[in-house]
């Protein structure tokens, strides 16, 4: 697993961004950027060179699911590993995310071990 990869974390709660950033730091991912909604994330992804996206679902003006669909529709970004971390735990949400091409799905509240395990899994398939 290449821990020098650039990671974009997307969440409208600043506290959650800080928690995920700190947990990634513990996992030795130090190249981390943040966005607070799908639109800002999409701009950063198109302008930058990222190897992993970790995104919340429930954000305005663009949700995490809509961000995922934009990423998968973009020729340059379509293979980007994309992990959804969200409180949306209904089966229909997981199914919709899977249909849109999510790489993995973590339900909040989550623990550091789950985050590490899912990152390892998606990066192994990248």
């Amino acid at each position: 697993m290449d821990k020098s990869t650039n990671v974009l974390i997307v969440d409208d709660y600043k506290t959650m961004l800080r928690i995920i950033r700190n947990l990634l730091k513990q996992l030795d991912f130090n190249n981390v950027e943040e966005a607070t909604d799908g639109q800002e994330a999409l701009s950063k992804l198109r302008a930058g060179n990222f190897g992993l996206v970790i995104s919340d679902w429930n954000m305005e003006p663009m949700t995490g699911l809509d961000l995922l669909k934009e990423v998968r529709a973009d020729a340059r970004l379509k293979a980007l590993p994309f992990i959804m971390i969200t409180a949306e735990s209904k089966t229909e949400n997981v199914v919709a995310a899977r249909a849109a091409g999510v790489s993995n799905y973590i339900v909040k509240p989550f623990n550091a071990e789950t985050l590490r395990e899912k990152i390892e899994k998606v990066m192994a398939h990248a």
Partner: protein
Amino acid sequence: MLEPMQKVDRAQIALNVMSGLNKTEATLLQELEALGRMVAAAKEEIAAMRVENVDATHLPAATDELDEVVKSTADAANEILDVCETLENLQPGLAPEAADIVAVCVTRIYEACAFQDITGQRIGKVVNALKQIEQRVRETTGRFAPSAALPARTAPPRTEGERLANGPQAGAAASSQAEIDALLASFD
């Protein structure tokens, strides 16, 4: 509103009709008339409701209080994170065993601080519910007291992501991480 002559006409019609009714039909007509009076009285009461107290004072005050709860928990969570980051910075100077214990404890605190996100989303759902109640109350009273009516709102079309964004689930509606993992694996 009926004009006086219309009222007389209707009363005359009612008398004419009642004269040809049997006892059961007359009772039914009286019941209907009583119901009509009750509906009219309810309409007047609804029209007289001080809706402005609900939408101008009570609901905004309630949502402000809830916003303050979210802000307070965010401030507390950030304070806790500040302390955790200070502890992490001390780790290089600690004995390896102590540094490991600090790392484990700090990680557990990070995990626990996620409560702020969950509670914030739950409170957001309550705020949205209050706003919907406010809108419904104004619409209902607006039907009987037009001056209180709000202009009709047209909801913009929603994306699938917005339609499915319902926040944290409670009880049986919520799936565990293990259930989600199993669901995803079923697609492979």
